């Protein structure tokens, strides 16, 4: 069992790091988060956690982010620091090209990369089976389907790499577009086989079977409650959008609808019986991770509520192109590296396995 932290500790850490990453585009803060997350990733790899092909995805995101910088630089013609002029008769890209647009594109790219790196670390440490177990019982079917959908890309990337290596071992060379046909044909076959295998295994485990059928009257009651709840939520949200200061009834509608839907979910969840083969343990380092994450979360929320300008980065006029930096926010962001710092040293078994795999 090589889980470094309790899944709920990981989840709170994820929320704590995701909040500042989503709130700001400040490249200085993002660079600290990226450094901390790369450290976490390195430690997870040392502990033999599977990357699920995230390396390729991160490279892909890096490419997309760079394309975003180029696109922003060419299409946004606002700012005072002009580095080139394209004829204004050129559609879309014509006009002055400014450093502000380049910087904003770069900051956005960095923010995107940070988020992808964060979820890469989360995915490495939390395989779908673990976070599926964290879902409310009533949502287990939705959870399984979601986990299958989410793991589709990483699994496909891994398969592509395996087929690519196998074909190269056979002496095949990938030079032109046509050379990739021997890659895609086995990939298609493998995907179909995987789908059939998955469907059979789910059917064998009784997925979707109605073991404990709900009585008709109860089912109708649940359906009516869900319908009324959704209607209340919709009405509340609509009133909130329509009026700048929505009446009390709008909030009551929103709250009442939410209570109805959650109540049905809870009642449905009680009818689902789960068995667990593996227990989760809460250790001291889990408490430390949660404590650090709560500090990160609290400082982020407090400083953002008190002075959002601390987090702001917007290079276009009238703001400064130079990012601001508050030392205490920077130090708190270093807490994103807590998983790496709190992770136990590698066990001898892991070390020997690592040496065997990488002599």
């Amino acid at each position, binding site marked *: 069992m090589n889980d470094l932290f309790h899944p709920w500790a990981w989840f709170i850490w994820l929320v704590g790091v995701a909040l500042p990453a989503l709130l700001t585009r400040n490249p*200085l803060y993002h660079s*600290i988060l990226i*450094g*901390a997350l790369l*450290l976490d990733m*390195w*430690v997870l790899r*040392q502990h033999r956690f599977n990357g699920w092909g995230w390396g390729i995805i991160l490279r892909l995101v890096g490419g997309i982010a760079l394309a975003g910088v180029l696109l*922003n630089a060419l299409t*946004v*013609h*606002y700012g*005072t*620091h*002009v*580095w*080139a*002029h*394209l*004829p*204004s*008769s*050129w559609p879309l890209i014509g006009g*002055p090209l400014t*450093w502000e*647009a380049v*910087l*904003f594109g770069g900051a956005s790219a960095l923010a995107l990369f940070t988020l992808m790196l964060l979820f890469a670390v989360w995915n490495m440490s939390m395989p779908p089976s673990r976070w599926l177990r964290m879902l409310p019982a009533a949502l287990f079917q939705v959870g399984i389907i979601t986990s299958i959908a989410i793991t589709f890309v990483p699994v496909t990337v891994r398969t592509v790499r395996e087929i690519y290596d196998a074909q190269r071992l056979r002496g095949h060379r990938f030079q032109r577009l046509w050379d990739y046909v021997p890659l895609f044909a086995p990939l298609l076959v493998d995907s179909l086989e995987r789908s059939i295998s998955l469907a059979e295994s789910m059917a064998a485990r009784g997925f979707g079977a109605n073991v404990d059928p709900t009585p008709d009257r109860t089912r109708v009651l649940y359906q009516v409650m869900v319908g009324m709840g959704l209607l209340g939520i919709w009405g509340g949200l609509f009133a909130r*959008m*329509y*009026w*700048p200061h929505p009446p009390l009834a709008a909030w009551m509608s929103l709250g009442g609808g939410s209570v109805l839907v959650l109540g049905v979910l809870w009642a449905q969840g009680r009818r689902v019986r789960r068995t667990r083969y593996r227990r989760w343990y809460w250790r001291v380092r889990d408490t430390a991770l949660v404590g650090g994450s709560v500090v990160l979360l609290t400082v982020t929320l407090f400083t953002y509520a008190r002075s*959002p*300008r601390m987090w*702001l980065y*917007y290079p*276009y*006029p*009238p*703001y*400064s*192109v*130079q*990012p601001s*930096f*508050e*030392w205490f926010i*920077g*130090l708190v*962001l*270093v807490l994103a*590296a807590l998983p*790496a*710092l709190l*992770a136990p*040293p*590698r066990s001898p078994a892991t*070390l020997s396995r*690592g*040496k065997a795999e990488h002599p």
Partner: protein
Amino acid sequence: MRNILWGLLLSVWVLVSVTRAADGPHRVGLVIRYSTGQVETYCVTFSEPEITGVEVLERSGVPLIVDPNQSVGTAVCKIGNEGCDYPLQDCFCQCQGVECMYWAYYHLVEGHWVYSRVGASSYKVHDGDVEGWSWGPGEPGHGDPPPVIPFSEICSGATATPTPTLTPSPTTTPTSTPSPTSTFSPTPTLSPTATHTPTSTPIPVSPPLAATPTPSPTWTAASVLPSPSPATRSPLSPVSSPTFSPPPNPTVTPTSPSVAVGSLSPVVSAPPTLTPTPTARMVWPPTLPPNAVIITPPRPQPGYTSSPRTPSPVSSLGGAVDASPWASYVLTLAVLGGVALVVYVRQGGRG
């Protein structure tokens, strides 16, 4: 070889396009109406055959906050002190429900304001056009467009001459008798290099007032038009301008254009010389009554330099680089490096 030819062809095209772009000074009028009813006009000069509506606003020098990364183009969030402080607020922070207030965009077509069908970053403005911005609902047919001010009136005093001096007459002698025809003549004379030129097109303001005028050293290249409102006027407090040096007791003799400012009858005549800058703006009238609405002049916020749009090196971004954030940043990176070292040692190196 083919690539080289294509490259050469493209370079020639760009060169020709850029050369053709600078084909002489053009002017465009800009009218901005605030929710208080106050109106500012600007006469913006540009050398390109056409510029966008956002560029007109930008070159006028008026404090401006936009969101250029909207999916539909550039959204104008704030002009002057009115609007939304994007990105701290939503760009349309006062258009979140049934009551929708925002900066509506108009074009003056044949003496009538026409609500713009496209965004300011998509609309091309040509020589002689007049652009309008108004804070309000701005619906087609139901909006609150700015007052109609023809181009000739906005850019009338903005004749480009080689002498970059402006000679207003800033000694004011008001009386307490309402004088709806008090006039003022700043006689702005701008150099051709100024990106926009001043006009003064005041509109009448009613009630009387008794005011002691103060010489206003703020002579910039636009005018503020007090709208017909119950506000009374008193001397306008001076707004500093580094290019204006009024004498100890300047005298202003208002001549033209005329202003009806209640009881204010400024007699202004003064010798000082003003050298307008591209971001200059004229505030009218020079004096304001105690309960009048004062339009504050554009003040660049910290970090913003309203520089001409010319190619500039990266090193000049943001002016002088503040060293203190970078020192804190390097220290924080050092802390992160220390953490990395501890982790490395704890995990037994690369294994």
